C-alpha cells in the first residue's frame, strides 16, 4: 500500500500529512511538523524520551503508529511554550540545573506539566512515580524531582 493521508491535530494546528504505514508518530512530529523537542531514545517504548501528550495524557510517540494519531489531539513541548505553568517549570529546571545533556528535558518537563496541571503541589513520591518511565542518564534524577516539586509549590 502506498502512503496514507492522515489528518493530524498537533499543538492546535490541523494538517493533513502523507505517512507511510510504518511511520511512527515520532517521525511525523519531527520530520513533518519540525517539532524537534520530541526525542528518539530507544525507539522501543522503554526510555520515555519521546513522550508527548495525546488527548492530554502522556504517551510514547515511538510506539504509536502515525496513522493511529488521527482523531486525537497531540501536544508537544513546543505547544506549551507560552503556558505559565510550563514557564515556571522551566525556570525551576534552570534554577536546579536539572538538565545536563538536555536530551530527556522535554519529556521530563511535559510529564511534570501533566502532573502539576492535574495536581498542584504534587509530592516528591508522586513526581517519582510520574517520571518512573522516563530515563535520564546524567542528573541522577534528584534535581529533576526538586525542580518539578518547586514548580508546584506556591510562590
Amino acid at each position: 500500500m502506498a502512503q496514507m493521508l492522515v489528518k493530524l491535530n498537533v499543538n492546535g494546528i490541523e494538517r493533513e500529512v502523507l505517512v507511510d504505514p510504518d511511520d511512527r508518530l515520532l517521525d511525523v512530529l519531527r520530520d513533518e511538523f519540525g517539532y524537534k523537542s520530541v526525542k528518539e531514545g530507544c525507539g522501543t517504548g522503554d526510555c520515555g524520551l519521546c513522550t508527548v501528550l495525546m488527548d492530554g495524557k502522556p504517551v510514547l510517540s515511538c510506539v504509536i503508529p502515525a496513522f493511529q494519531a488521527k482523531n486525537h489531539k497531540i501536544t508537544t513541548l513546543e505547544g506549551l511554550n507560552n503556558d505559565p505553568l510550563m514557564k515556571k517549570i522551566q525556570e525551576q529546571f534552570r534554577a536546579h540545573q536539572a538538565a545536563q545533556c538536555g536530551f530527556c528535558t522535554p519529556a521530563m518537563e511535559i510529564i511534570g506539566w501533566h502532573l502539576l496541571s492535574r495536581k498542584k503541589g504534587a509530592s516528591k513520591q508522586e513526581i517519582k512515580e510520574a517520571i518512573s518511565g522516563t530515563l535520564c542518564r546524567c542528573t541522577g534524577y534528584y534535581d529533576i524531582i526538586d525542580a518539578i516539586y518547586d514548580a508546584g509549590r506556591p510562590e
Partner: protein
Amino acid sequence: MEQPLLNRSEIVVLQPSSLKESLKLLNENPDAEIIANASDLWPRIRNGEVKPKKLLDISGLAGELSYVKKDENLIKIGALVTVSQLEGESILKEKRFSGFKDVIAKFGSPQIRNVATIGGNVCAASSSEDFIPLLLAFNAKVKLSSVDGERYVNLEKFIIGKRKINRRPNEILTEISFEDPGEGYSSAFEKIGRRNTLIINIVNMAVVGKVKDGKIEDVRIAANRIKGKIPERAKNTEEFLKGKALNEETIAGAKKVLSEEVSLTDDFRASAEYRKALLLAMLERLLFKLRGEQ
C-alpha cells in the same frame, strides 16, 4: 534510527470504525494482524520480528469495546479498556479486586498504561503480560467474536504457549469476563523484576481466595512459568491449601507442594534456583495478604 527492513511500508492498513465492519474485514483478510493501540506489537513490527502484510487497526472501536460493567454476577471488561482506564474503575475498587491495583501499579510505565489495553495484554501472551496470572486466578473467560457468531473460551485454554493463542484467524477477542467471587474474597498480585518500572518479571504470582475464621475456604493461584514459559495455575498447591488453617505449618506444606509442582528454567533474567526462592517467598506473602496482613 532506520533498520534494514522488508517492505514494511507496503503494509496494507485496514481501519474499520465498528465491530461489525471489523469482523467482516477480518473474515475477508484472515491473514491480517490485529492491532489495538499497538504498544507491544509496533516495536516488533519495526524491528522486523513480525512481518505482517496487512494490519487490522481496531483502535477505532474504543467506543464499543471500552466498557467495564457488572452483568448479573459477571464482571465484563471490554478488550479495548486501557490499563489507566481500569485504574479508575469503581467496580474494581472493592477489596476483592485489589489484585488489579497491584498489577496496574507495576504495569509498564505511566505512558504505556495510557495506551496498553487488557485485550492486547492477553493476546500478546508473552512473559511480560502481568494481567494473565491475575485473570487466570479469577477463572476468566475470553469472548471471541467473528462473522459466525461468538464463542467463549477459558483463558487457561486460550493461552497455549508463549505468544501462542487459541484464536481462529477470523476472530477478534472482544471481552474478558469472570464471575464476581463475592464478599469475603480477596486478591493480590506480586511481581519481581530487576527494577520497578518497565521491566519484565523474573517471577510473578496472583492469588484469589477466601479466608474465614483462619481457614482457607477457597484459593486459586496462578504464576508465570509454573511449567512452561507461560502463566499457569498451581492446582496441586491450591488443592493442598483448601480447607486448611492458614498458619505457618500449612504454608510450609504449601511451599513444598509448590516446589514440586513447578519446573522452572534458567534464562538470561534469572536462574531457576533464584526464581524458585522468590516464588516460594511470594506464595507466603500473598497468602498472608489474603488474611488481610501486609
